[in-house]
């Protein structure tokens, strides 16, 4: 569990089916750096696409929009993680 954040990008080969929960857990962790990069990158990418009057709200939009989308990802992954943990002995 302690090493998971560092090992998340490239997971070690899973030992058996009981380790399948690691995949959604790693994906949930990876969503955190992806979120921060997306906030910065999306604001940068659309800077020239939006009307000049809206430029001041760009960062707020990027942050809120990514909070919504990554929140959705995290919720889906959390559901998958719970499913994996519940069916671990099945």
């Amino acid at each position, binding site marked *: 569990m302690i090493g998971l954040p*560092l*090992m*998340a*990008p*490239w*997971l*070690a*080969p*899973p030992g058996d089916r009981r380790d399948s929960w690691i*995949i959604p857990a*790693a*994906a949930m962790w*990876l969503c955190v*750096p*992806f979120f921060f*990069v*997306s906030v910065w*990158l*999306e*604001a940068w*990418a*659309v800077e020239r*696409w*939006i*009307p000049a009057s*809206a430029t001041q*709200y*760009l960062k*707020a*939009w*990027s942050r*809120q*929009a*990514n909070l*919504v*989308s990554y929140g*959705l*990802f995290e919720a889906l992954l959390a559901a998958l993680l719970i499913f994996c943990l519940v069916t671990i002995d099945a």
Partner: protein
Amino acid sequence: MPEASADLSLLSAMITPAVLISACGTLIFSTSTRLARIVDRVRQLSHSFEQLYTGSVTDFSEERRQEVERQLVLLAGRGRLIQRALTSFYVSLGIFVGTTLGIGLAALWPRITWLPTSLGAAGTIVLFYGCVMLIGETRLAALGGPGDGVRVEAARAVPVAAAEGLKSPLAVRRGGWRWKSLITAAVGMVLVCASPARADAGIPMLWLMWPAAWMMLVPVIALEGIVARRVLKASWAESLKVSAVANVVSTIVGIPVTWLALVAVEVLYGIVVNVLPMTEPFSRR
């Protein structure tokens, strides 16, 4: 029975570099095709040159000559890069075959277990170098297209080469390749210090998350479009356009680049945890 099992696991270990051998073979095949195309194009341009100098073509002869020269300069640069890439792929193929033999020999003489590891790392570095050369060649190929806009870009990109004509066809390379060499060296260092590669080397999460990100792209664009309409006070069309551009860029660039950076951190962590303790016995001596 246990002996048979040991033999089978040795055979299985010896086959492990086959994945990379196969990758080398595929790259050699595709790179050879590219080289053949370049040779064909050079022959075609030489024929055009001949026509210009014999007077068969008189319309815009000076402009045509300049264009042919420019393309020959680019093709010479591409040819050199392809030649380096091809050499790298052949060398790495040989090294990976050597790795296979090394694994077998290491089973007989355990004292040389370092041999297949070193060969595997060396082969991977050479393969990576070849891939970098191919990327450079692809960039030059994009500059050499027939479109006018592309030609203007190409003329901007190769002013030194254009000024020096055919005498210095590789002047193109002087521009911005040093940083790539630095990256090659840095990645090479990381690979040299990395643990030996195996076919069952775990799960690269990008392979799972990237397809998922692409599948979720349309709903995410819609979702972020709604937020854009509310926050940016823009029209629906503008909001969806902004959201689409942002998410396509973030999916194409953001996710893989971030993942690569995280993998680099993981590799460095692996070096610290795995490789540094291995130096203890040597320091004790």
